[in-house]
C-alpha cells in the first residue's frame, strides 16, 4: 500500500517536473482525439442527412377510379399492419387532382391535356412512407396480392426504384466510407500515441536504469510510467470533452440551421452518449498508453 501511494506520488511528480514532455504528450493525445471526434461528428451528420432524405421519400399508390373508398381504406389498414411502414395517408380523387395540377403548374402541355379529359382522370391514392427507403421494394411487393392488385392502377414504384437504390447504396457507401476513414485515422492515432510514448520512455531511459541500480524492482520503476500514461489519457479526454462542449454549444445552432429540417442535434447526441463515447476514447488511449509503455520499457528494465 505504501509503495502504491509512492508510485502515485512519483507519477504526479514526474508529470509536473517534466512539464514540457507531459505537455507534448497530452497535446498529441488531444490531437488524436480531435481526429477521432471529427470522424464521429461527420458520421453522425452523414447518417442524419441520409436518414432525413430517406424519411422524405414516399411512394404513391393510385387506385382505379372505380375502387371504393372502403377498398382503399382496407389497403391502408393492411399497409399499416406491416412493420416496415411508418405512415400511410389517404388522398381523395379531388386532392390527387389538385396535387397533380400543382406539381405540373409549369407544364402547359400536361395541363392542356388534363383539360381535354372529362371529369377527374385520377382516382384515390395512398401515400406511403417507410422507416427505411430500402424497405420500399418489399412494401410494394406486398401490394401484389390478388386481393388488391385489380384495384391498383399505378404504383410509382418504377419511377422511384432507381432513386431509392441510389439512395440506399449511397447511405451504405457513406457508412462504409466513414468506417474506413475511422479505421485509417485510428491506425494513425495508434502510431502517434505509440511513438510519443516511446520517445517519452526513451528520454527517461537513464533514470530507469538508475532506479534499477538503486534496488527498485521492476514494478516500482514501471508503476509511475504506467500511471502517467493513464493520467495523460484522462487529462486528454477531459480536455477533449471541454473542447467538444464549448465548440458544439457555439456551433450547434449554425449546424442545425444548415441542415434545415434534419434532426442533427449534436449537443443532444454527445450528452446522451457522453459516457460510452468519452469512456471509449479514454479506454482506447489508456490501453494504448499502457501497452506501449510496457513494451517500450522492457529493454531499459534489463539492468
Amino acid at each position: 500500500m505504501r509503495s502504491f501511494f509512492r508510485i502515485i506520488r512519483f507519477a504526479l511528480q514526474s508529470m509536473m517536473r517534466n512539464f514540457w514532455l507531459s505537455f507534448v504528450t497530452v497535446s498529441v493525445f488531444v490531437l488524436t482525439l480531435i481526429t477521432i471526434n471529427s470522424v464521429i461528428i461527420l458520421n453522425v451528420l452523414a447518417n442524419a442527412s441520409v436518414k432525413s432524405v430517406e424519411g422524405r421519400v414516399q411512394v404513391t399508390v393510385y387506385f382505379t377510379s372505380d375502387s371504393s373508398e372502403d377498398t382503399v381504406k382496407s389497403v391502408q389498414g393492411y399497409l399499416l399492419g406491416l412493420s416496415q411502414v411508418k405512415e400511410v395517408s389517404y388522398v381523395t380523387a379531388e386532392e390527387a387532382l389538385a396535387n397533380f395540377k400543382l406539381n405540373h403548374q409549369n407544364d402547359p402541355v400536361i395541363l392542356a391535356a388534363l383539360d381535354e379529359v372529362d371529369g377527374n382522370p385520377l382516382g384515390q391514392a395512398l401515400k406511403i412512407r417507410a422507416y427505411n427507403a430500402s424497405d420500399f421494394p418489399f412494401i410494394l411487393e406486398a401490394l401484389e396480392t390478388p386481393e388488391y392488385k385489380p384495384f391498383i392502377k399505378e404504383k410509382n414504384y418504377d419511377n422511384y426504384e432507381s432513386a431509392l437504390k441510389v439512395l440506399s447504396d449511397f447511405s451504405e457507401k457513406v457508412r462504409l466510407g466513414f468506417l474506413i476513414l475511422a479505421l485509417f485515422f485510428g491506425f494513425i492515432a495508434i502510431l502517434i500515441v505509440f511513438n510519443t510514448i516511446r520517445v517519452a520512455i526513451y528520454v527517461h531511459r537513464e533514470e530507469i536504469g538508475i532506479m534499477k541500480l538503486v534496488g527498485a524492482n521492476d514494478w516500482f520503476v514501471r508503476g509511475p510510467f504506467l500511471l502517467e500514461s493513464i493520467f495523460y489519457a484522462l487529462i486528454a479526454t477531459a480536455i477533449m470533452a471541454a473542447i467538444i462542449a464549448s465548440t458544439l454549444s457555439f456551433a450547434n445552432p449554425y449546424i442545425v440551421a444548415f441542415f434545415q429540417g434534419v434532426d442533427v442535434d449534436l449537443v443532444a447526441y454527445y450528452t446522451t452518449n457522453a459516457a460510452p463515447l468519452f469512456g471509449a476514447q479514454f479506454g482506447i488511449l489508456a490501453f494504448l498508453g499502457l501497452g506501449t509503455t510496457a513494451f517500450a520499457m522492457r529493454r531499459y528494465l534489463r539492468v
Partner: protein
Amino acid sequence: MRRSLRSVRGPPSAPPVESLAPLGWFDAAWYNPIMITFKNVTKEYPPKTHALAGVSFRIEAGEFVSITGQSGSGKSTVAKLIFAEEKPTSGHIHIGDWDISNIRHSDIPILRRQIGVVFQDFKLLPKKTAFENVAFALEVAGESSKRIRDVVPHVLKIVGLGEKGGRYPRQLSGGEQQRVSIARALVHRPKIIVADEPTGNLDAITAREIIELFTRINDFGTTIVLVTHDRDIVNGLHRRVITLREGKVASDAEKGKYLLA
C-alpha cells in the same frame, strides 16, 4: 574491525563527521567474516572478448580494497558482477552466503538494497532533489516515510550536504553530486559499498575529499570496494590492492601500491 567514532580524525577541511549510530550500523545480523568471494570467475562478451579469465579472490567484512588496472583490464566488470549488472559466464560469486552467480531477475533488487553503489557519472535522478535522490533508495525498499524523514537528513549531514537537500543535481557541483550519490549508497545501511571510478569526473582536491569520506565510512565497518585507475589515490590509501591485467589477477597485496604495467 569495529571502531569507535572517536578514533576517526578527518583533516580540518573535511566536513563535520556525524555519528552513523542512529542509522543502526553494526547490526550483528549482517556481520559476516567473508563478504565477497570470486571463485574462478570468467566473463566473456560475445563474440570473443574475455573481460575476466579465471579471477579468484576473497574480501573480508570491513576491508577497504582497491581494484586497479588499466582500461580494459576488467576492473569495472568486477564491480558490475558484484551488484549483478552482469552475470559471470562461469565461476561463482558469493556475497556473504548468497551465491549470486545465477541470481534470479526478481532477486536482483533485494541484493542491490544491501550493496551501495557509487559511479563515476554519479547516476542521480535529474528531476529529483538531493533529498529525494537519497530517499529513493529507501522508498524502493518500502521504508516508512517517518524513518525516511529521520534518516535522510542525517546521512546528508554525514556527507557534508546538510543544507543542500532541496537542490536538484544540476544545482550542485560535481563533488557535491558525488556526495549525494554516496549518501544514497549509504542510506540503507549496506554491508558493502562498490565505487566504480568515483573520482573520475572530479578534480584532485575534491577526489581526495571523496576518498576520505570512503575511508571514514569504512572506519565504521562497511566493506568498501573501490575500482579506480588513479595511481595517487591508490598509493595514498595504504590499503589492500588487487591489480588486474588482461582479465586476470596480476597481484593482490595488503597495503599495496599501484603497479605500473
